[in-house]
């Protein structure tokens, strides 16, 4: 349970301390030819891009929260600015190619920034479903349920969305349990066959 909760919270943590690869992994990247053209012109100016995190939600713009700025001169650096002190800490020096990736990530962030926190589905139902799922399908299935829950929440309100979520989880348990039992009985039958014939 603790491990699951930790995993669930991973996106609620600040992304300011994450590496380029982690930022890239967590965001939908898209190709921005204009930005790439700007970088390849070899301009020395600082290209100002800032993203800010607050309580795990992502914002774009000003404020007194943590900031990450990307600068490009001959080399490009990912610079972390501490909130309060304003102290700049260089996280890593990157090539312009890597900078492009970060820029694309930051651009993607602008599109993904929620205006208000997205509704969270009931934790207990989510955990119950988690117990019945295979490791390789957990993320995808629960992600799909959350996506549909958010849609229902916007359309019908929290109460109906929650009822839908609980009902979906409870009705999903039987097919998942049936699959597990079929697999288990297959193993039992195989064991029995080996015991008899080997």
């Amino acid at each position, binding site marked *: 349970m603790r491990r699951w909760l930790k995993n669930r919270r991973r996106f609620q943590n600040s992304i300011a301390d994450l590496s380029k690869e982690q930022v890239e992994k967590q965001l*939908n990247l898209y190709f921005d030819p204009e930005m790439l053209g700007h970088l390849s012109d070899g301009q020395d100016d600082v290209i100002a891009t800032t993203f800010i995190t607050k309580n795990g939600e992502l914002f774009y713009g000003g404020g007194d929260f943590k900031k990450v700025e990307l600068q490009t001169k001959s080399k490009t650096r990912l610079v972390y600015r501490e909130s309060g002190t304003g102290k700049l800490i260089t996280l890593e020096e990157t090539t312009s190619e890597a900078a492009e990736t970060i820029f694309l990530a930051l651009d993607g962030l602008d599109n993904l920034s*929620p205006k208000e926190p*997205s509704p969270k589905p009931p934790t207990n139902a989510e955990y119950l479903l988690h117990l019945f799922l295979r490791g390789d399908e957990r993320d*995808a299935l629960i992600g*799909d349920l*959350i996506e*549909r829950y958010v849609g229902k929440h916007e359309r019908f309100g929290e109460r109906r969305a929650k009822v839908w979520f609980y009902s979906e989880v409870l009705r999903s348990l039987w097919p998942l349990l049936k699959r597990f039992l079929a697999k288990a009985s297959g193993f039992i039958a195989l064991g029995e066959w080996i015991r008899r014939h080997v």
Partner: protein
Amino acid sequence: MVMQKSTYYIAEFEELVLLAILKLGANAYGAAIHEALEDTGRSVTIGALYTTLSRLEGKGLISSWMGQPTIERGGRAKKYFKVLATGARALQAAESARRHLLPLPTFAFGGVQ
């Protein structure tokens, strides 16, 4: 190429799932398929859908790959699905069997007793 006969047999729900994946094309992931099936008026749970998808994948009728994690989904990645050539052939076989067994229009519309 001669296919194994058993590959062609698909259940009615499996057929619907394959058709939904074909219809959605590049955007065929769990939530979209679930919604497409619900739009047909059929009540289906996401658990039942995923067990069917994993069965179809086990039969070699579809393939899947993971997309990028997104914030809207609580940081969870989408799993995309694609119908393979064997899946398309299975659909064609099911369609052909249905056509073969379909009563003549005269019977269907009560023209001949």
